[in-house]
Every structure is written in C-alpha cells, then in structure tokens.
C-alpha cells in the first residue's frame, strides 16, 4: 500500500521564534527540537498560545524561524513547498466557496498542473470516495456540514500525495462523536498514504490515539517539555483507548502539561479514564 516514493522526515533543530509588537518582544518558541521519522505520525499538544500552530507554520514555510532550522527530508521547507510536497489541513476547512467539492479537491492540481508527477494514483472520484463524500462531487461548500467540509479539505491535502501532512487542529470544531470517527478515518487514510504526519491538537486523547510520539509543549515561552512514545500497535482501535498502555500515556502527557505532582495527586487511573 505504501507509496513507492520516499517520504520525508521532519526535523526541527534549535528553532526559536520571537514576535515583536509595540517594542516588546514575545518569545513564541524557544529552542524547539523535534524529529518525526519518515512515515510516522506525531502530535504536538499544549495549551492555547504555546506556539504549536506557529511551529506547524514554520514547518509549512508560512513563517520563518528567528534562529535554528527546519528540514523536511534533505530540503528546506521552501524547497519542499515548491516541490508540492506539503499537505496542510487548517482548523477551518478553508474551502473556496464558489468551487464545487470536486473543484476544491482539484485546486492543487490547477496550481501544480494536471500532469504533475506528484498527482495521486487515485482519481479525484476515488479520493472523494475515500473521505466518504461520494455523491457530493457537485455540491458547493455551503451545502455541506462542518465535518463534510473538513473531509473535502483532507481530500484536497492528499491529491498531490504529500510527503509531509500537517494538520492544524483539523477536527477541533467538530462534535466529539464526529471527531472520533474522523480520527479513525484519518488514520486509515494516513496508513494507506505512507506520508509523515504532524498533528496539532489540544485533546490529550486524540493526540495519543493518533500518534507514535506526542510532543508536549508549555506556554510562554513555547518549549517542548516532554516527548511521550505511544507503544500501541497499529491499526489503532477504539478499544485501545481503554488499555493500560493508553492510560499510562495519558498520565505521562498530563505530567508534562501540568507538572508531575499536581497531575498524579489529582487523578487516579479510573478518573483519568473518565476524563477521556
């Protein structure tokens, strides 16, 4: 199932990002290091304002780091972007409202060229079917629910078989039930694509369920405080969310987010289970 093309790993080395406003400077990210090996799924979790979206935007070449560097495979983010190697799913679906579902999915093809070598082996129709929107090809975005719109955005991110798939809280606006279903579908799609994926989220359960590694960040300055490996096998199932391994991971992420004593004294295992 894996795409024969070599995917890219994500390497972030000593990245610092400073925003200047009104003479003050705010350190958004301080000496951030991370490495997502080729074909793996990693998450960044942290409180609002910890710079996790900023980090994702640095990797997508939307922003430039103040110091340090980001490499995707052997390239800079800019070179990877020009190679159409990036897929980005925003928190809001960010569809073009005058384009039909099919036309939205094909927007990257309009930009890169219909005969782009990156073009997915799947036809647009197959991609639309993959995200569960068969029959809605000619619908306009405003005729779809939020969840369906986000599925269009996912299909659009896959149409040029990205080496690196960046997900900025893509399911944050969805209800819990839809969100869990989308998570499972996202994992299925990711497993088939062989792409390296990085998800920004503030849901502990989602981060662990989806990932091989979870990077836990603190705010002001944005720093990575711990990395939690998730030793759950793939494919992931909802049952795994009740396993001891899962709870261990939840507790380790909580330790990183809230400090060790606070989270362990405040919550026993059964309580943690109820929280997620």
């Amino acid at each position, binding site marked *: 199932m894996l795409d024969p093309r070599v995917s890219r790993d994500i390497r972030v080395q000593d990245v610092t990002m400073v925003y200047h406003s009104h003479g003050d400077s705010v350190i958004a990210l301080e000496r951030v290091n991370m490495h997502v090996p080729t074909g793996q799924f990693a998450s960044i979790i942290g409180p609002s304002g910890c710079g996790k979206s900023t980090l994702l*935007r640095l990797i*997508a*070449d*939307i922003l430039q780091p103040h110091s340090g560097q980001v490499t995707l495979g052997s390239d800079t983010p800019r070179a990877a*972007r*020009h190679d*159409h190697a*990036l897929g*980005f799913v*925003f928190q*809001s679906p*960010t569809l*073009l*409202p*005058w384009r039909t579902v099919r036309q939205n999915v094909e*927007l*990257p093809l*309009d*930009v*890169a060229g219909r005969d782009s070598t990156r073009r997915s082996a799947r036809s647009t129709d197959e991609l639309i079917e993959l995200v569960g929107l068969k029959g809605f090809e000619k619908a*306009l*975005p*405003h*005729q779809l629910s939020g969840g369906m719109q986000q599925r269009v955005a996912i299909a659009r991110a896959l149409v040029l078989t990205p080496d690196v798939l960046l997900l900025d809280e893509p399911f944050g606006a969805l209800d819990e039930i839809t969100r869990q279903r989308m998570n499972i579908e996202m994992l299925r799609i990711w497993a088939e694509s062989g792409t390296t994926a990085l998800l920004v989220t503030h849901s502990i359960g989602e981060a662990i369920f989806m990932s091989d590694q979870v990077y836990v960040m603190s705010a002001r300055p944005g720093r990575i405080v711990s990395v939690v490996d998730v030793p759950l096998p793939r494919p992931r199932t909802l049952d795994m969310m009740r396993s001891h391994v899962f709870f261990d991971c939840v507790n380790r992420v909580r330790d990183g987010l809230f400090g060790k004593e606070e989270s362990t004294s405040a919550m026993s295992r059964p309580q943690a289970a109820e929280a997620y």
Partner: protein
Amino acid sequence: MPAAMPSIGSRLAAVARPTATLIALLVGLELLKRGGLLPVFVPAPSQVFNEIIASPRLVTANLGPTAFKATVGFFIAMGISVSAGSLAVLLRGAYAPIYNTSVTLNSIPIIATAPLLALWIGTGPQVQIVIATLACQFSMLVGTVQGLRATDARQRELMHVLSASQFQTLRYLLLPSAIPYLFAGFKIAAPAAVLGAVTAEWAGAERGLGAMMLYALFSYDTPKVWLSVLLTCLLAAGGYGIVALAERLVVRHGREVELAD
C-alpha cells in the same frame, strides 16, 4: 439546494404596488396640468407620451447611440479598472499611484473637460466614450481593490502552501472571491456611464440623448426635454438592471456586498 423561490402571487404583488403608485402619480400630474395648476415648464404626461407617438424615430435615433457609447465606455473602464486594481493590490508600490490617478480622474468636472477633449480627439463618438469611461472607472476600481483585499488570511496561506504563483493566486483565489465586490462597483458604474455619455453629448454630438436634450432646451420644447430626461433615466436604470441580472447569474454561492465608499 436553491432557496425557496417566491410564489408567483407575491412576485405579482411586488410589481403591482410600485406600478399602481406610478399610475396614480401620472394621473395626478395629468389632472393638475389640465386644471392649470402646474407651471409651463412641467408638461402633462400625455404631452410627453404624444412626443413619442409623433416621432418614434426621435427616440430610437437618440437612445441607441447613447446606449452604445455608454456600453463601450463601461467595458473599457471595466478592463482598465480591474487590471489596474489587480496591479495595485499585487505590487506594493503601484497602489498609491493607481489609486491617486483614479481619484483625480474622478474629481475632474466632466462638463468642463468634454469640450476640451473634443478639441483634442475630435467630435465623434470617441469623446463621449472616453467621458463615459472616466465617469464610471472609480467605483469599479474601488470595488476591485476592496474585493481583492477581502480574502481570508487562511485562504491566502492555503495558496502559499500550494506554492501558487501570484498570477495563480489572482486567478484561483483573489478574483473569484472579489466578484461580489466587483459587481457592487459595476452596479454603481452602469448608471454613471450613461450619465457620463449624456453629459459629454452636451459638448457636441450629432446624436444621442444629450444632444436631443440640448436641442429641445434651446427650442423651448419642454415635452421633448422631459422625454429625453425620461429616456436617460430609463437607460441608466436599465444599465443597473442588466448588471444586477448578470450578478445573479454569476454569483451562485449566495453572497452580496455593498460598497462602503
């Protein structure tokens, strides 16, 4: 799917009320005039109507040329304003010179420039076309610039991640999302083009509503003056109507925009 269409009954009602008001007004005017209660420069509606019956060729011979000149001017202005507006938004340094030129051109009193233009480029229809272009370019430029800038930051980030060129961003994102704003500008521009053409015809034209108006004024033919005023109104409103109709056909995703300035 499409919003519920208004029923035929409610559509009829929407047309019937203004029509009834208009008829009442015309009948009232007619009665006042017959009763000798109106001054000499206000003709009875029947007198204006008689002018049309008496010389239908007067109407067709003058309505057509003005409509033609206004339309050509409108489309020239559309081409120039949309291109210039795009340039103003894409090239940082181009914004101020383009906008300032447009404002300046829009501030020139047409009534004074039309005779000068006639001296420079001759008295044919080209003068009226240029003036019609000048009269409607500003609202189109404002609409274009506002529209091109109205895109969402996320949508621009999307085009960036897709590695789209400036031209591709303009083509796939900026211009399509500007369309409701463009139409807001076009709707103001259409009547302006007609009024510009008519005003320019005052400076010397063989045919056109402006010329008809001028001749009628000089010969104290009040019904004919009012007829030319009426035809100008109809043409200007008709231009607006055509643009509004085109907007309905083009904009499918249910957005309408009013220009702020």
